[in-house]
């Protein structure tokens, strides 16, 4: 069975890129562009992993994580942000991994593999 990944990324081009690349890796990817849509999807599907950006219009990724922790503590979360500095925000420590966005998706892919396997 394919593992389900919820992808939250407000940049449309990046959202498409991650969705395609993770699908190619063999995952079932649900991509959304904001936190509200992510919460709605969480009610519908039993996801195995969440990949989220931090800076987004509306609710940001940290607020999203806080809310997800209240709903389902067991889902692993990867923060995928353009900002290095959010690593210093202790709220991001709640996530299972922190990846700084890069043109190479290798780090993101390997963190996903570590957390939920292929």
């Amino acid at each position, binding site marked *: 069975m394919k593992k389900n990944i919820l992808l939250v990324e407000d*940049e449309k*081009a*990046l959202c*498409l*890129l991650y969705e*395609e*690349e993770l699908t190619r890796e063999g995952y079932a990817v649900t991509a959304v562009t904001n936190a509200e849509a992510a919460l709605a999807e969480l009610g519908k599907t039993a996801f195995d992993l969440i990949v989220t950006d931090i*800076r987004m*219009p509306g609710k940001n990724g940290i607020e999203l994580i806080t809310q997800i922790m209240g709903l389902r503590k067991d889902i692993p979360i990867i923060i995928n942000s*353009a*900002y*290095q*500095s959010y690593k210093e925000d202790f709220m991001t420590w709640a996530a299972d991994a922190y990846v700084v*966005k*890069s*043109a*190479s*998706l290798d780090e993101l892919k390997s963190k996903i593999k570590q957390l939920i396997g292929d």
Partner: protein
Amino acid sequence: MIEKYNFLGSDFERDAPREMVLLSIISQSFFQPFSLEDNLLVILTALTSGSGVGFNRAMLFLKQGDRLKGEMWLGPRSAEEAGFIWEVLSTPGIGYIEIIEHNRALVSKNEDTLSSRLKGLVFAVDEETALIPAYAACRKEILLVREAASEPLVDKRFLDVIQVDEFLCIPLLARDEVLGEIVLDNAITRTPITPADIKLAGLCGLIAGNYIYSTTLHRKLLNMEKMAAMGEMAMFVTHQLRNPIVAVGGFTDQLLKPDVPEDKRRRNLTIIRDEVRRLEDIIYQMGHFLKVSLKEPAYFDPGPVLAGVFDSPEVQTKSQGYTLNVKLEPCLPLILCDPISFGEVVRNLLDNAFDATPTGGAVTVRGYRKNRSGFVLSVRDTGRGISNPDKDQLFRPFFTTKEKGMGLGLPFTKRVMDTCGGKVDVQSRVGKGSLFKLIFICRERE
């Protein structure tokens, strides 16, 4: 009953006490957006003009580190020149503005002016070794020097330059700190310096000291704000640049894989092109905001610049689907700003107004005199309005509510308005719209 008065009243009568005339000249000039150098020139002018204290010559030193450095020296070089200059300056109808302009030309000339003789002079402000003039700055005391040639405390190099027997040293103080010194004399008329002259010159020294102090503080503050903005900028740039770079890199990697279908190849290339354009746009805007210094403001007619903005293709395209009302007073006054920055600021406000307003809404530009010396250019929209928490952040660099905005438009506006001595005023109600007012210093056309 209420009577209203302007701070900038009409010039004092000729028979007004000279203290009043002097204070009036100096405080009026501080009210103008003159540069530090210009305002110091005003003080020297006030000290030497006939309607002020009336010294023949005034010399200004500014303190840099622990040294007094000669900055400007105002006055005639000889009795003949004095006769000529004083004749020009006492022509009826010549006000202090004209005198300042005349003096500005005088100190900025390249030839052998008094100022050029002073420029190379530097004296250490050192308690142990200082001689006059630095001695007065060290002691923080006003010194009247007579028979200078035989006074051992007078620096010989200084005596060679000033070449006069009697002169007055006024240290410029603020909060117990020495910021410079003014040296005054009557080298041409040989009139003795009176206790009344000393009192008045001392007063000027205090005003000048405090003026230099507050200007320096203001510069430091602006610098700190700039540094803080740079820090935020560094963080913001990372994000703004990284996203398009990741997209370009990621989609290029996909293209490099074998057997990419034609439609995907086209799609990826389109995305890459769009993201590169975005990068270009980001770099342009950053460069624009980072322009180290804006041009010096000058008086100009805003009419043609405004017409250029309204007719520009950007505004024409953006205003499609909206009602754009322009209500400008006939015969606009001259306003004080850099014309190019002015155009950019107005275009920016229009841009924001259209972005905030749903299609079909109205944007209204008005231009009117607020009073004799103030001109208002306002841009009103019927858009979504700005919430109170957002209002506090409007002028912070990189704050934006737009999806693709950089948050640099309004900080730039504020910088431009600060530079020209103007003001930005914002009124807004959520759901009703916003009103941005730019308030400029203005003057009538000649």
